[in-house]
């Protein structure tokens, strides 16, 4: 009976092999179609559309359109765009380095599965679940000059009042602090998972050979976390470019453009100034930057993975 069934399946399989390949392709097309329709509408088409729009020059009050690099020229001539670009670089460095360092330190410090550590990990992870807008609403009070959380407790240490969000020299730093607070717990999670994958006997062997805890961290933990590190770096980079909710709530890019970031600049041009040409040109440059970054990071990731094996 079993043999008979197997025989039948086998015969059918041989008979249908070439037709089967074609019908598999047909089935695949059917299964992929829903996703592809939405990807085409909201990922592929927009790229073409935004490139077209960035090259289109509309003159107010006339129906004729011209094509050219005018939007890009206006964009590059705009000081605010330059500020946004520089700010975004500072913001990237300022958020990524400390949040990864803190996340790593917390992961190493809290990796043992005691109940106390679990509670502390939960505390650090809570900000991750908070909407960035809600975090911004809370930090409105944290940064409030004089009576806010920060100044209230700094005053106990003898510091005076500080206008954390209103001073152009401090505002970006304040946003960076908020971002580090919000994201470190997320990155910690990946490091905790990465740490679990490191074999314990490596540490045991190092200890027998007399390596101190710092040497063990430098020589074992850090190199073996390489792939995790590359991974976290990519997520952090995407976050730096795509999350500007706190800018909208806390500073609106000000004072005097000191906290303007690329995506917020794009949002401002499109939503407040209705300058779609400039917004499109800025989007094209950001997309090009993201693609270049993702290409680079994919290669880093691959190298990281090779390193592991």
């Amino acid at each position: 009976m079993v043999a008979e069934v197997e025989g039948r399946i086998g015969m059918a399989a041989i008979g249908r092999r070439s037709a089967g390949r074609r019908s598999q392709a047909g089935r695949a097309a059917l299964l992929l179609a829903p996703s592809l329709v939405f990807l085409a509408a909201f990922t592929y088409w927009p790229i073409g559309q935004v490139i077209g729009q960035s090259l289109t020059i509309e003159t107010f009050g006339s129906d004729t359109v011209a094509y050219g690099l005018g939007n890009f020229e206006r964009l590059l001539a705009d000081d605010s765009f330059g500020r946004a670009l520089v700010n975004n670089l500072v913001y990237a460095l300022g958020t990524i380095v400390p949040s990864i360092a803190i996340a790593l330190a917390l992961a190493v410090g809290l990796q043992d599965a005691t109940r106390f550590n679990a509670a502390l990990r939960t505390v650090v992870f809570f900000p991750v679940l908070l909407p960035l807008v809600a975090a911004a609403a809370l930090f409105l009070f944290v940064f409030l000059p004089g009576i806010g959380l920060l100044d209230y407790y700094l005053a106990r240490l003898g510091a005076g009042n500080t206008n954390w969000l209103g001073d152009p020299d401090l505002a970006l730093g304040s946003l960076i602090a908020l971002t580090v607070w919000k994201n470190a717990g997320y990155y910690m999670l990946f490091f905790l998972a990465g740490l679990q994958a490191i074999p314990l006997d490596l540490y045991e062997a190092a200890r027998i050979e007399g390596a101190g805890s710092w040497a063990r961290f430098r020589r074992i933990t850090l190199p073996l976390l390489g792939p995790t590190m590359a991974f976290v770096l990519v997520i952090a980079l995407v976050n730096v470019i795509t999350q500007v909710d706190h800018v909208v709530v806390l500073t609106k890019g000000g004072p005097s453009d000191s906290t303007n970031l690329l995506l917020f600049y794009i949002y401002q041009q499109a939503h407040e100034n209705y300058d779609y040409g400039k917004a499109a040109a800025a989007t094209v440059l950001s997309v090009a930057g993201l693609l270049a970054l993702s290409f680079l990071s994919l290669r880093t990731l691959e190298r990281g993975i090779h390193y592991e094996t």
Partner: protein
Amino acid sequence: MGRANPAALLALAALSAVVLVWSTPLLWMAIAAFRPQNFGGLDMASLWPDFVPTLDNFAEALDSADFPLLYLNTVVVCLGTLAVQLTTVTLAGYAFARLRFPGKELVFYGFLLQLMLVPPILIVPNLVTITRLGLYDSLLGVMAPYFASAFGVFLMRQTFRTIPKDFEEAAIVDGATWWQLVWRVLVPLARPGMVAFGIVSVVSHWNEFLWPLMVVSTPDNQTLTIGLASFTMGAESASQWGVIAAGTFLVAAPLLAAFALFQRQFVNSFLFSGVK
């Protein structure tokens, strides 16, 4: 172990300091939200709870923003997006895991592109598309750009790969119809992947702000984050910090409570979401 070496003590102290600083803003939120409104202005930042907690701040928050509607809209957006996503990502994930077809790798890379070119970066062209489709100022317009999810497809592909083919073949031999195969065999086995994806998807859409802010123009279609932002601006100018704390609490509480209840599930799905 056991030896109190100074470096270890120092590390412990630094760790405790970090955790203390990390917990302060949320701790303040929880305390300030339940304080009486006339609580001493200059000591607003104090972290001592008031021993007669009141709901005045919540009453005021509920009064100044239409929270029931905001909750409803947010739930509709989250569940509506998730329902469509689960369909698209399961189908595509299955195709990538099980079927052989020409150009498979190329198509897969085409999907992965969306991991980097996430919808927020494409707000300008997407707004044009949404407007042309007549979806401006509608909840559907908020959801539509997320209906395909490269992250979800990737996750479901991994999930289907872990399911042995024997199960499907056995079901076919037993004479199961295609429909039975899907509902009795594949969906139950793929459930862990779906749950992981669901948690990440709901959290990210619950928290989303910039895109809905661009698409929605009337209060009827606002989501919680938009409501909270405009509500915060109002309360800020009146220095009603307790009310802001209460409003933030209302927006954040559902996810924080869900996390407290299903911690392991959440952590696992967020680890998956590294490829988001």
